[in-house]
């Protein structure tokens, strides 16, 4: 990877557009299917679903190679898929099976694959930003051109870890991008009740970092902004913050009654703010992609998810004698 300016959003090739669509569709199908399967009681632990926010993971990670790093959140399926983690192994992990990406001992909130630069979903709110400062410092000391991206929510942006990481990344001029997925609810609480005015861009400004805000439902907006931020970090320009405004289609966790949401809010969101529908309309109206291309991806993705669920259900449980393996990782 070299330090080159990112292409303008309009210069995406047909293959790149189709890949972006495949990633977003895979995330959507993965999450919709988990929503259904979780209700059967077969899946252990908690799951936090990412549906609705696909454009953010896809738009950011499309600029990252396998040598670049991502640190995720408790809502990490989308980031993991976009960073290239194996979908079947992710599903098996969520089902707690030995074939899982962490051998079934991590579950939804600890999906990680270092071979893909995926540092992990993270049960600690605000846990990702310090990790990317660490790998960012490594990249800087080694003189590589790797970039590290952390994802955090609006609630996580209040954590000391997040604010300390902004400070470290600014002070040490690290090749890091902080992406804040502002989906309007810290679990169930609006920012109006946990912040004296949420202004993430001004917070970045306070640490001397550039911060910008984009529409998190719009793949092209996220893609362009992330392209600039990642190219800046890769070429020695230092850290920056991108606020992506989006909303999730499901609750904080599966089983959340969502009494904090307005009646009809989710139906309205699904009708008017759907990144996949908007993407499909725009690329087909522009004549860059055919409906048939997208339909073929839809069919292929549906098969991938069907197979992943079938394999996960047929997988083996880890045995008690495996409980102490994979606890520590030797670098």
């Amino acid at each position, binding site marked *: 990877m070299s330090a080159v300016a990112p292409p*303008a*959003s*309009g*210069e*995406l090739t047909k293959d790149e557009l189709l890949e972006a669509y495949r990633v977003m569709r895979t995330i959507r199908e993965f999450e919709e299917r988990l929503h259904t399967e979780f209700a059967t009681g077969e899946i252990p632990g908690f799951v936090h679903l990412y549906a609705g926010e696909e454009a953010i993971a896809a738009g950011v990670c499309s600029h990252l190679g396998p040598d670049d790093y991502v640190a995720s959140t408790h809502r990490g399926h989308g980031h993991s898929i976009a960073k290239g983690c194996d979908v079947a192994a992710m599903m098996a992990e969520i089902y707690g099976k030995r074939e899982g990406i962490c051998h079934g001992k991590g579950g939804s909130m600890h999906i990680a694959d270092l071979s893909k630069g995926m540092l992990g979903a993270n049960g600690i709110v605000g846990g990702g930003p310090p990790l990317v400062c660490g790998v960012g410092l490594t990249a800087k000391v080694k003189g590589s051109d790797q970039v590290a991206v952390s994802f955090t929510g609006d609630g996580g942006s209040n954590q000391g870890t997040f604010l300390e990481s902004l400070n470290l990344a600014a002070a040490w001029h690290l090749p890091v991008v902080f992406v804040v997925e502002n989906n309007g609810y810290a679990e169930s609480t609006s*920012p*109006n009740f946990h*912040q*004296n*005015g*949420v*202004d993430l*861009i*001004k917070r*970045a*400004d306070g640490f001397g970092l*550039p*911060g*910008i*805000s*984009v*529409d998190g439902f*719009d793949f*092209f*907006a996220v*893609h*362009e*902004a992330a392209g*600039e*931020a990642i190219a*800046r970090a890769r070429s020695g320009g230092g850290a*920056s913050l991108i*606020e992506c*405004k989006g909303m999730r289609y499901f609750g904080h966790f599966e089983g959340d009654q969502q009494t904090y949401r*307005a009646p009809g809010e989710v139906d309205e969101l699904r009708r*008017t703010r759907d990144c996949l529908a908007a993407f499909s309309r*725009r690329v087909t*109206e*522009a*004549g*860059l992609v055919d409906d048939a291309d997208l339909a073929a991806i839809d069919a292929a993705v549906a098969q991938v998810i069907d197979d992943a669920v079938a394999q996960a259900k047929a997988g083996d449980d880890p045995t008690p004698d495996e409980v102490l393996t994979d606890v520590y990782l030797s670098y």
Partner: protein
Amino acid sequence: MSADACVGIVANPASGRDIRRLVAGASVFGNADKAGMVFRLLAGLGAAGVERALMLPAGDGLSPTLRRQLDRRIGEAPFPALEELDVRLTSTAADTTRAVELMCARGVDAIAVLGGDGTHRVVAKACGDVPICALSTGTNNVFPEMREATVAGIATGLVATGRGGEHALVREAALVVERDGAPPDLALVDVAVTRDRFVGARALWRHEALRELFVAFADPGAVGLSSVAAQLAPMARGGGRGLHVRLAHDAANAEAVVQVALAPGLVTQVAVAGFAPLEPGERVALAPGAGTLALDGEREIERRGDDRATVHLADGPRRIDVDAVMRDAAAANATQMQPAAG
């Protein structure tokens, strides 16, 4: 002085935070700063006798910060009663459109706008002939002014209460974009035809993407796209004529190369293939080509290669000339304060 004057307030929480902070050197305008501006605007409106204000509730900390400031206000100075409109926020321009429609339906006497060129454009599309006070919240604006909100509030209040004086209102121009099968759109400063296929992060800063540019006026002291036109042929604001500029692919095929501040911190050379005045009543067809149309510096419309579109000049909104109002008010007050003859 008319009784029960009412002023609308639109403060855009999304202004001053686009991608130009990343790709250029634009500064951040915080939402607490905007809340402070609204507070000072209200102080000015109250001093001028405005009794009610209607405001679009603004997210990202703006309205909560303003409410806290108002709740903890000390002193007895008159403030208008502030009512937040019942608009469910979508964090898109539709919020502003809906709010301005409601304000006009409620018969506001004026609307104060805090934002950039893009915010003012959205207000201008919906406000009809209701006078607007155009206040900048950023460093990349041409249409609104950077000025103290307290004074702007006094001037707006004088207009709203029928004491603005005969020079209070200026008729601005607008560039109207008409496309097949779409409602007409408008820009207050510039329309740019670009090669970018998608709207993306909206702001336009890559001059390589430009094909054509139309400006309603061109001030050599301004920053942004209109400065390209201004370096070729300055066009006075309110002068009735605009400019149509065609960009060249490279300097070798250019009729002129101009150096302009395309964004804060971004000075670049732009190659020009040709330019001509845009006369009142003249309708110019855009050269065909897939890409986007940027209105007042923001990519707004995705366009196929075979889409047909035209641009022409038209009347825009009525803007409050704060300096003129304050000059006339000063003159009137000076007359009143003179000692009685004899």
